[in-house]
């Protein structure tokens, strides 16, 4: 069997699936199912029905339960900066429908944006009120809480498809969240796009990893008051966060983890963002175009530990 590659519209963007030796049909079907269940733009989706359900405890499909589990893990992992329960806030900020194209140039948005400030976790964080059963088939949350699948949904999709294809050599790109497995072959190069320039910001050679980018440059608009807005919200205020970072990329073991770290790094700003990425590495791109490549200290430490143990 030869390599198979497919490019499809999925999860609010474009997905590119590549496998060296295999058939992607089943993976593509799984991706379509994940999107149908997790989209917040279709009132008939499982996620929308969960958000509208008048009961506190709701029976769900394991994919939806998996998303809730991922949302809890992301909130915990990021100290509350990544909160998937800001569904009402993102609609209030002006992102209530499918994104159809650029509405405002990034430089204009940066020029008009409020003073830069790092984001903070919310005192009454919605993600803390989430509960999911071990089987991922029952969810409890306060009635009225609106879950937003967003980036965590994309990461989960990449991870679930990776589980499906594990053992082979593949690249699964779900709207910029990638799961990569080089199998027994050489590492696979992944380019980190520079949002403000033509040249790549960085190139990683990955073996078995996930990589995700969180950035504000692709979805920028003016809200009803004329203020620039984007989709990455400060949980403490429920408003778009302007931290001085326009793009953050994180490497991790799973795409959900990479997505969580990337978003937390962007929301943390240029200084604290480095600490967020310092474990498994990543890239920060600042408003002035500077590229800050953060080394993977956990990888260095693990290799040093192994070398000493020999």
């Amino acid at each position: 069997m030869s390599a198979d590659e497919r490019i499809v519209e999925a999860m609010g963007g474009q997905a590119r699936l590549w496998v060296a030796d295999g058939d992607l049909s089943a993976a593509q079907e799984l991706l379509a199912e994940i999107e149908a269940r997790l989209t917040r733009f279709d009132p008939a989706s499982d996620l929308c029905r969960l958000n509208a359900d008048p009961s506190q405890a709701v029976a769900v499909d394991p994919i939806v339960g998996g998303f809730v589990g991922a949302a809890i893990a992301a909130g915990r992992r990021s100290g509350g900066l990544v909160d998937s329960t800001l569904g009402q806030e993102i609609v209030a900020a002006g992102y209530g429908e499918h994104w159809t194209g650029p509405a405002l140039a990034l430089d204009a948005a940066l020029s008009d944006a409020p003073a830069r400030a790092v984001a903070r976790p919310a005192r009454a964080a919605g993600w803390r009120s989430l509960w999911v059963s071990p089987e991922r088939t029952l969810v409890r949350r306060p009635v009225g809480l609106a879950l937003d699948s967003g980036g965590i949904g994309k990461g989960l999709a990449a991870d679930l498809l990776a589980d499906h294809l594990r053992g082979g050599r593949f690249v699964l790109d779900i709207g910029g969240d990638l799961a990569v497995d080089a199998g027994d072959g050489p590492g696979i190069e992944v380019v980190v796009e520079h949002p403000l320039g033509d040249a790549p910001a960085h190139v990683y050679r990955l073996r078995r990893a996930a990589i995700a980018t969180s950035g504000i440059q692709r979805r920028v608009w003016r809200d009803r008051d004329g203020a620039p807005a984007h989709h990455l919200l400060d949980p403490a205020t429920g408003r778009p966060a302007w931290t001085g970072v326009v793009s953050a990329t994180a490497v991790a073991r799973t795409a959900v983890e990479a997505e969580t770290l990337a978003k937390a790094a962007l929301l943390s700003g240029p200084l604290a963002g480095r600490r967020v990425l310092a474990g498994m590495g990543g890239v920060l791109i600042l408003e002035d175009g500077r590229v800050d490549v953060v080394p993977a200290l956990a990888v260095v430490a693990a290799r040093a530990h192994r070398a000493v143990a020999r």
Partner: protein
Amino acid sequence: MKSAAPAARWVATITVIAVLMVFSVLALRVKLGDDPAIGATSASADTSATTSADTTSSDDSASVEDLFDDSTSSDSSSTSSPSSAPTTRAS
């Protein structure tokens, strides 16, 4: 000199109590995730905790050592790769 010893003991006792209180407050803030910088640092350092266990995603046995390929070999002629380099970007 006789009165110095009890005073020194009081100072030492108060210092120890103050240090314990500071560390208790810091530990509580990390636990509650109140401070994103503290929480993020803690999360970054905790590489043994993986989201996969909580998300039914990829297995958590993957070592961080397997993330990158640092080999100097560039011979990939016999191995297929994507037609163009995969790219991570905000979407």
